[in-house]
C-alpha cells in the first residue's frame, strides 16, 4: 500500500473532508501560513480560499467560542493550535460551554467541532510548550478525546472526529508527523472509541498512548528477541475509552504496565489502573506499573529532558523488573530518537 507520513496523512484527510463537505473549515493561529502547522494544513488556503482556511487574531478564548457558534449553525469547524498548552486559554469555552451545550439543551443539539492541538517534545521547549493535558479533557463529560499514533489512524480518526456530532479534542504528537506508514488513498473513517492491539502477547499487557505507542512497539520487538512477549494496546480514543480489550488482555496476562505520555498523578494511567483494579480483581499477579512524565514541569535542558520523558528503554527496564528478569545488555541498540534529525525549533 502507499506509504505516507503522518503530517501528510492529516493534510490529506483535511483536504478530503473539505472537498466532501462544504461546511468543514479549518482555522487557527498560523494555519494558512507557509509552515502550515508542521505541514498538516499546507495548501488548504490556496485550494479552498480564505473563507474556509484562515488565520485568527491572538485570541484563543474568543476563537474557541467562535467554533461553538459556527457548529450550532451547521458548520464543522476544525480549530488548530500549534501547542496544546495554549488550550489553557480556551478552557472556559471548552469546559463551561462546549462540553455541556448539548446536554444543557436537551440532548439533540449537534456540536460538531474539532479542536486539534499539537503535543509533545521538541527540544528545549520547556514548561509552557510541552504539556499533553489528556486528563483535562477526558475528565469532562461530553468531550471525546483522540490521540492517534500511526498515519493510518491519524487520517481515519480525524475524519471520524470531523464527522462526529460531538466536540472532539484531537491531540497529535509533533514527532509523529515524520513517521511513515501505510495509508489508504481514499477517504475512510476509523470509528472513535475502538482500541487497537498493536502486538499480541501473553506475558504482560502494555497500554500505551500517543508517542509512547511508537516507543512501546519498538520495546516490544526488542523484548520479543529475548523471549518476552508483551501485548501492546493503543486505546487511540482516550475518551470514551475502549476498556474491554485492555481488561481481556489483563485477564490473560495478569500483568499491566501503562505507558502514558503525560503526568501520572490524577491522569489517564490512574483511570486505567482504577478500571483494571476493579474489573480484573484477583487476576492481577502483581501491582500495576506506570510510566509517564516525571512529576515536574518540563525542564528545557536535554539531559533533564531525557530524565523527564520515558522511552522504549524505560519500558524495557520496567518490563524486566516486573517479570523478575535481569536487565539485558542494550549496548548498541539504536533507540528511536529524532534528536539527531530534529534541528528545531517548530
Amino acid at each position, binding site marked *: 500500500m502507499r506509504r505516507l507520513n503522518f503530517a501528510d496523512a492529516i493534510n490529506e484527510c483535511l483536504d478530503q473532508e473539505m472537498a466532501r463537505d462544504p461546511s468543514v473549515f479549518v482555522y487557527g493561529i498560523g494555519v494558512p501560513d507557509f509552515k502550515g502547522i508542521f505541514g498538516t494544513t499546507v495548501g488548504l488556503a490556496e485550494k479552498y480560499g480564505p473563507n474556509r482556511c484562515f488565520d485568527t487574531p491572538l485570541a484563543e*478564548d474568543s476563537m474557541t467560542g467562535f467554533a461553538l457558534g459556527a457548529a450550532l449553525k451547521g458548520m464543522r469547524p476544525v480549530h488548530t493550535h500549534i501547542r496544546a*498548552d*495554549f488550550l*489553557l*486559554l480556551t*478552557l*472556559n469555552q471548552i*469546559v*463551561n*460551554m462546549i*462540553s*455541556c451545550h448539548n*446536554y*444543557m439543551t436537551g440532548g439533540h443539539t449537534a456540536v460538531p467541532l474539532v479542536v486539534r492541538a499539537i503535543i509533545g517534545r521538541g527540544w528545549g521547549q*520547556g*514548561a*509552557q510548550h510541552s*504539556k499533553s493535558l489528556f*486528563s*483535562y479533557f*477526558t*475528565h*469532562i*463529560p*461530553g468531550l471525546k478525546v483522540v490521540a492517534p499514533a500511526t498515519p493510518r489512524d491519524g487520517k481515519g480518526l480525524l475524519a471520524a472526529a470531523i464527522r462526529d456530532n460531538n466536540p472532539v479534542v484531537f491531540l497529535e504528537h509533533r514527532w509523529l508527523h515524520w513517521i511513515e506508514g501505510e495509508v489508504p488513498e481514499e477517504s475512510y473513517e476509523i470509528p472513535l472509541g475502538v482500541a487497537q492491539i498493536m502486538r499480541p502477547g501473553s506475558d504482560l499487557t502494555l497500554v500505551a498512548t500517543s508517542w509512547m505507542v511508537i516507543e512501546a512497539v519498538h520495546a516490544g520487538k526488542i523484548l520479543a528477541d529475548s523471549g518476552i512477549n508483551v501485548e501492546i494496546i493503543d486505546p487511540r480514543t482516550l*475518551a470514551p475509552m475502549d476498556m474491554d480489550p485492555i481488561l481481556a488482555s489483563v485477564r490473560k496476562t495478569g500483568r499491566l504496565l501503562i505507558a502514558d505520555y503525560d*503526568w*501520572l*498523578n*490524577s*491522569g*489517564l*494511567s*490512574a*483511570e486505567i*489502573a*482504577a478500571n*483494571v*483494579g*476493579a*474489573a480484573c*480483581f484477583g487476576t*492481577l499477579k502483581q*501491582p*500495576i*506499573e*506506570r510510566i509517564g512524565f516525571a*512529576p*515536574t*514541569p518540563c*525542564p528545557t535542558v536535554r539531559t533533564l529532558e531525557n530524565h523527564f520523558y520515558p522511552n522504549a528503554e524505560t519500558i524495557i527496564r520496567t518490563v524486566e523488573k516486573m517479570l523478575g528478569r535481569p536487565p539485558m545488555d542494550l549496548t548498541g541498540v539504536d533507540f528511536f530518537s529524532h534528536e539527531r534529525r530534529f534541528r528545531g525549533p517548530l
Partner: protein
Amino acid sequence: MTNQSLQKALSYREALNKAMHDAMAASDKVLLFGQGVNDHKGIFGTTSGLADKFGAQRLIEVPLAEEGMTGICIGAALNGAYPINIHIRADFVLLAMNQIINLAAKYKYMFGGLFDIPMMIRLVIGRSWGQGAQHSQSLQSLFAHIPGLTVIMPASSGAIVDSYAHAVQKHRGTVISFEHRLMYDLTFERDHEPEVLGKTPFSQRRVRAGTDVTIVSTSIMSLEARRAADWLADRGISCDVIDLHCVSHIDHDVIMKSVGRTGRLLVADTSWLPYGVSAEICRIVCQNDPGALKAPVVSLGMAPAPCPTAKALEDIYYPNLTTLTDSIATLVRGKNHGIDLPHERSMADVYKRFKGPF
C-alpha cells in the same frame, strides 16, 4: 497534631472570615482580590468587616477579568505581596487557567528556583440547588494533576483556620483551596476536629478510626462519610474514614496502612470519577499493593454528565446518605447486607434549607 488556633466552635463561614482576618493581621503584604470582596455581601460574609479594620486599599474589588487578575496577583506576589484571589464559583477559574498552570505553577521551576509565587486562590464549589452545569463543578483533579501546585479541600472550620494560616505564613508556593458552599453554614465543634495525620496542617486527616472498611473522602463527602459511619457503627460496621484534605499531596502510607488493616476501600469524591481523585486513590492502591484488597474498590462521585438543574435529576446526580451507606454496607457485607438504611435522598436538602438566591 492538634488544632492550636481554633478556640471555640465556629461555622465554616466564620472560620473563613477569621482566616482572612488573621492573614491580614499577620502581614500587611496580604491583599484580597475578588469580585465582591468589598461589597455589602462580602463573598458570603467571608470578607465582611475587613475593609474597616485593614483599609479598603487591601481589599481589591476587581473587574470581571479572571485571566488578567490572576496575572496581576502573580505580579504582585513577585514583588513582595501575598495575594488571596477569591472566585465565588470555582467554574470561573477556567478563565484563568493559563495564568495558573502556565505561569504560577511553573514560575519557580521554570526559573530554576529564582522565584516563589506565594499566593492563595479560593474557589467556592457552588453546589446548592439549580446551579447547573456552569456553577457547580468541582475541578480539583485539574489542579492536582499539575506539579507545582498545592490543592486543598478543607472540610471543617479547624481545617480552614489551620491550613490557611500555614499557607499564608509558612508555605512558599501557590495554594488552591476548594471550599464547598453547602458547608458554609455548618458549625464545627473544636472537639470533633479530625486528627491530622502528618507534619503540616495540609496533611491528610482521620475523621474516624475503624477496622472493617476504609473510606477516603474529599470536602463535604468527608462529612457524609462521617454520618454514614456513625449510622453503620450502630449496626456493626466499623469505618476508617480518611479526609484527604490535600488532594495534590497524598501520603501513600496513610492510605495503604488503613487499607492493609481493613482490606476494603471506598472513595467518595465531590467530582466526576473518571480521571479524577478517586482514580488516583485506586492507582495508589493498585501500584503499592493490590493484594491488600479483599474486594474491588468502590467509588462514589457525580454522575458522568454535566450537572442538570432540575431538582429531580440533581438529587440522583449526586450521591446521598442512603446510597453512600448502602455502598459501604454492600462492600462489607455483600448485596444482601440486611442493614436498614437512612432515608435521605438529597444532600442539598440536608445541608442547606436553601431557598435561593445565593
